[in-house]
């Protein structure tokens, strides 16, 4: 199925406004007023709290395989995490994940 142009443009416009307002929310409203310590403590954990939940379904049930778990993609995810934890380098993690993915796709 393809998307009709009117739906596409309404979606694009709504997302343009909506995503900006979400990003501007705290930066725009709070200004230079200091946030209380308990808020800051929670915010320190936002990336490690959100990203695993976002990635888990993509790793376990990739859309490219119709939602079936895929050994090559599982291997790639594991290699990315391992390299990231051991080297503390985003680039090393990406390279390890890419290498494992293509190795896995070739092997399985």
């Amino acid at each position, binding site marked *: *199925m*393809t*998307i009709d142009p009117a739906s*596409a*443009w*309404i979606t*694009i416009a*709504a*997302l343009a406004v*909506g*995503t900006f307002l*979400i*990003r*501007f*929310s*705290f*930066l*725009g409203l*709070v200004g230079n007023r200091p*946030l209380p310590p*308990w808020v800051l*403590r*929670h*915010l*320190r*954990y*936002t*990336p*490690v*709290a*959100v*990203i*695993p*939940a*976002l*990635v*888990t*379904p*993509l*790793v376990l049930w990739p*859309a*490219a395989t119709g939602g079936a778990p895929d050994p*090559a*993609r599982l291997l*790639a*995810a594991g290699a*990315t*995490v*391992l*390299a*990231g*934890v051991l080297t503390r*380098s*985003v*680039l090393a*993690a*990406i390279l390890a*994940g890419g290498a494992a*993915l*293509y190795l896995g796709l070739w092997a399985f």
Partner: protein
Amino acid sequence: MTAPSPRATFWRGFLNALPFLLVVGPFGLVFGVVAAEAGLDLLAAGAMSVLVIAGAAQFTALQLLVDQAPVAIAVLTALAVNLRTAMYSAALVPHLGAAPLRVRAFAAYLLVDQTFAASLAEFERRPGMTLSEKLAFYFGSATPVVPVWIGASLAGAVLGRGLPPEYALDFAVPIAFLAILSPMVRSIAHLVAAAVSVGVALAFAWVPYGGALLIAGLVAMVAGAEVERRMEARRP
């Protein structure tokens, strides 16, 4: 130690964001290809990447529209996927909150996973940075990421169906997210937050329209903060 010039700080931000291009490039290409297959013309695909700059949200919206979901559902779900940027926005307040409103508005437009991850890591590494240094670094980190995202989207839209699925470019997305995440897990509290996030996401996977992500994010954030609080309380 003398303070680095804003120019040097800008370029440090630029350099620190370069590794993300390995991800943003393929991700943008895939988005362009998916958009072309979904029937979006070059202008619409490009406009979406310029105006929205949110890969996961853009994919979500397209996928739902292709599946014949109502426009309102597609928009709300895509926005829910992007709600994490509200948390990023809040996390940047202690660092960029003192900037003028217009600068904060421009920073908000450029607030994506990569600029946030690169900048927050730097701000935590160097607690003595001034506001102008932080802004220079932040805009420096956005300079390679955003144009490459837009350019790659357009290239993908032109290529259309030319890219074979054997390249598995779809998996650029999870690899990118995991590569950003893994080096951030520096303490037991981080590890607990990440584990809770995975567990809750799986337990609530049946919740439609990105709901599991929101529930897992909130619960895991509270779990991480609570572990940190207890470990600090135990310290003499």
